[in-house]
């Protein structure tokens, strides 16, 4: 669940407000799309939801956590309720496909047995079976995107946030991805 109340965001060294008194609510189970031209503040909203930046004014409540009031050391707990798919994938270069996905589970303290069972299932779900030992650099853009999706799904998050998830994909892959997210 997301609730943004009168959120204003002005970046440092900037006079222009990226967001000006924005309020929105996304309920549980809802599939919401945020559309708009480049520079309209879509990524800013996502960064506010993930706690990467704090609003200049207003409040942001994500899965019951008020990010403005949340202590910095509690931020990881909020992030663990989210599965985020970044526009630029943000995979760890030195880790294999398997480790990139498993890493998200290790962070939440999952047991090794649980990791061994869950990661192959999720990789199969996104169509990356047989690619476990590859490094991100050895994958195509679409495959990297699917690793990012697998990582976002692996902990069964309460909410998935995707920043232009089809931006780097061809129409066929884009359709596949949307169907996958709908599952």
């Amino acid at each position: 669940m997301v609730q943004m109340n009168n959120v204003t965001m002005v970046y440092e060294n900037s006079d222009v407000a990226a967001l000006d008194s924005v309020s929105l609510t996304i309920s549980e189970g809802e599939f919401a799309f945020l559309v708009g031209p480049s520079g309209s503040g879509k990524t800013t909203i996502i960064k506010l939801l993930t706690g990467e930046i704090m609003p200049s004014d207003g409040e942001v409540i994500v899965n019951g956590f008020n990010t403005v009031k949340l202590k910095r050391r509690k931020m990881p707990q909020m992030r663990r309720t989210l599965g985020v798919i970044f526009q630029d994938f943000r995979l760890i270069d030195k880790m294999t496909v398997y480790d990139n996905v498993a890493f998200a589970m290790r962070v939440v303290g999952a047991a090794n047995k649980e990791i061994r069972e869950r990661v192959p299932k999720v990789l199969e779900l996104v169509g990356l079976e047989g690619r476990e030992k590859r490094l991100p650099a050895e994958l195509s853009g679409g495959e990297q995107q699917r690793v990012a999706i697998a990582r976002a799904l692996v902990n069964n998050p309460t909410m998935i946030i995707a920043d232009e998830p089809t931006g780097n994909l061809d129409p066929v892959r884009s359709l596949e991805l949307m169907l996958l997210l709908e599952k």
Partner: protein
Amino acid sequence: MKLNRYGYLIGEGFRNIFTHCFMSFASVTIIIACLIVMGIFSLLDININQIIDDIGDQNQILAYVDEDMTAQEASAKLQTKLESLDNVASVEFVSRSEARESFMEKYDESLMEGIDDEVFRHRFSIQLIDLSLMDETKAEIEDVDGIVKVNAPTEFADKFISVRNVISIVSLALIVILGFVSLFIMSNTIKLATYGRREEIAIMKMVGASNSFIRCPFIVEGLVLGVVGGGLAFLAQWGLYAALEAKIVESLGISFVEIVPFAQVWPFVLITFLAVGILVGAVGGVIAIRNYLKV
């Protein structure tokens, strides 16, 4: 934190060393270089102090005994009295005949022909704990019944103390300056090593990793690199010192300058090197990544 997480994080620390092997090599090399430079100056300081202390030890007070006392009387009555004085380190009784023999060893024997032992007085050779208190101790010795005259090189002691103080201050200042320079170089190398991993840290934060989860492998990595750097620096210092010691003895023929044996100082060198290596490696790593954790 669960046990299997500790295992994973420690393993990650070790894996990172090999994954970023060039930066690991650079960090260890810088740690070794800085420790050796600091070590050279510290050992030089230890040796200079040793030489100065040796010179100081050779400056003893001679207390001459009343001629009416026999050797047995002097030794029995005065030895303990002199030993009980505050600033006295050791007291050695030297009889007339021993004094004559010692004189003959130093000078031409022909000078002593026909001269009887009686010319020499019984005496005590006294070593002091603190040379700066030589004047006060000399006065105390003069007050002891049975001592008729005291010879003390007070002027030399004053000069000697001034020289020792200057050398101590200069060497300490050099070690402190070099220590800071070394820390600066080492922390910058570690900063450089972690700079390339800021994106990786940002991703970890975004998937919900806590700061301690991210820090732990860096601490392990820093500890290991610090221990390896400190250990290798110790071995290099040992080899360098042994080679230098051999060279000095060889070039001077007889060694009138007593070099402190490495066997005497190695625990100090090893503990200091490992401590500095661990401190710089682990603390430096944590400090270097702290800016990347503020996400």
